[in-house]
């Protein structure tokens, strides 16, 4: 079956099976920044934004996305022109193996879109579904704070 969705601002039509997960559909379509960590809605590596809200693509069927907007990490920035969150995560050392990073940054983006000056508690709430086995999360909080302050400066 065909599913029409907007991916990172571009309208796309994906050919999928009725049971294809959004995770597999996106990876097959070349969005490799969406990671496979558990396929059971328990690690957050496959996090994407659906209509601006953080969702787990492993428990979404691609067909549920009909007519909706998806943002993957590829939609935020590139190494040449990174999003402030991507820049901040690298700068403060919040990236180690990097496997959870795309999903975590997308969760952080959803947070900052609604709350430009989050408290530490809000950051913890917003990142609680993105497991990381490397960093201990300490520097992720620093990174979100740093990116938030830079984004606030950009948009006074």
């Amino acid at each position: 079956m065909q599913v029409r969705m907007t991916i990172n601002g571009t309208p796309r039509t994906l050919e999928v099976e009725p049971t294809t997960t959004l995770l597999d559909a996106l990876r097959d379509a070349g969005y490799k920044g969406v990671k496979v960590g558990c396929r059971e809605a328990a690690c957050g590596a496959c996090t994407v934004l659906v209509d601006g809200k953080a969702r787990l693509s492993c428990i979404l069927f691609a067909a549920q996305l009909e007519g909706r907007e998806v943002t993957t990490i590829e939609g935020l920035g590139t190494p040449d022109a990174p999003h402030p969150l991507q820049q901040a995560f690298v700068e403060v050392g919040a990236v180690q193996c990097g496997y959870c990073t795309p999903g975590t940054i997308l969760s952080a983006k959803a947070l900052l879109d609604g709350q430009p000056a989050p408290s530490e508690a809000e950051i913890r709430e917003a990142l609680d579904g993105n497991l990381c086995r490397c960093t201990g999360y300490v520097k992720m909080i620093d990174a979100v704070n740093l990116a938030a302050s830079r984004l606030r400066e950009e948009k006074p």
Partner: protein
Amino acid sequence: MSQWSGWAYPRTLDEAMALLQQDDPPWEPIAGGTSWAFRRSGQEGGLMDLSRLPWREVLAEEGTLRLGALLSVEELRRSLPVRDRAPLLQETAESIRPHQLRNAITLGGNVVQVFAWSDFPVALLALGATLHVATPPVGLEQQVPADDFFASHPRRRLEGRLLTGVTVPARRPGRGGAFLKFARSRVDLALATAAATVEAVDGLVVAARVVVGAVRGLPLRLARVEEALLGRPVDDPALPGVAVALAREGVTPVQDLRVSKDYRAQVASVLVGRVTARALARAAEG
């Protein structure tokens, strides 16, 4: 994998009712879809995506609050009317983690596709909610009290019908409620949950609903705990202890890989005591 033939996207009650009456293929409703992580195979027919239906209302009415079945848990958590008129539901929403699942899980899905650890059934039973069910052929709305709705597995009970929303009594002076969850970590499925509502008049308990969850397949009202509260001063410091003792006798958990039955019974009764204490204190606040 399953043999699904396709997807349908009903936008109105009529379209949904029409689909529900087809049986070749049969259409299976799906809302947030999170429970499909646990049942991926053996399905036939098509899936009807309910997410485009309009059941997302938050309506503060006289003494009640009506909530659409398709509200996400996160929408409930952030809703100001919910915070003001049904704080117990906000506590329940808050306890559902992680945030990606709060965005995905709907109120309706959580109370229809009930797992042992599901949270809103416990909350709605404690609140004495009314559930609104649309019935084919034209979607006539039935009102089902929570006590009936959760008396057996709702998904089977609902067969061929759709939950459209729930109504809960709004908070008012003399009424207090609370919800508590116990889990192994801060982002986890419940090992035990408890919810309670208490109503006091002139400082005496006149109504109480105390519910324990996650210890068996469906939430359980603790009648003996409720009876023990009735007629007692709302600020009686002995009441939470009484609740713990009676809950310990009344709760018989099923076997679980995570903890022993005994431990679960113990922690569930401690939770009942704590949630009762909170509900009493809030009722006493007026």
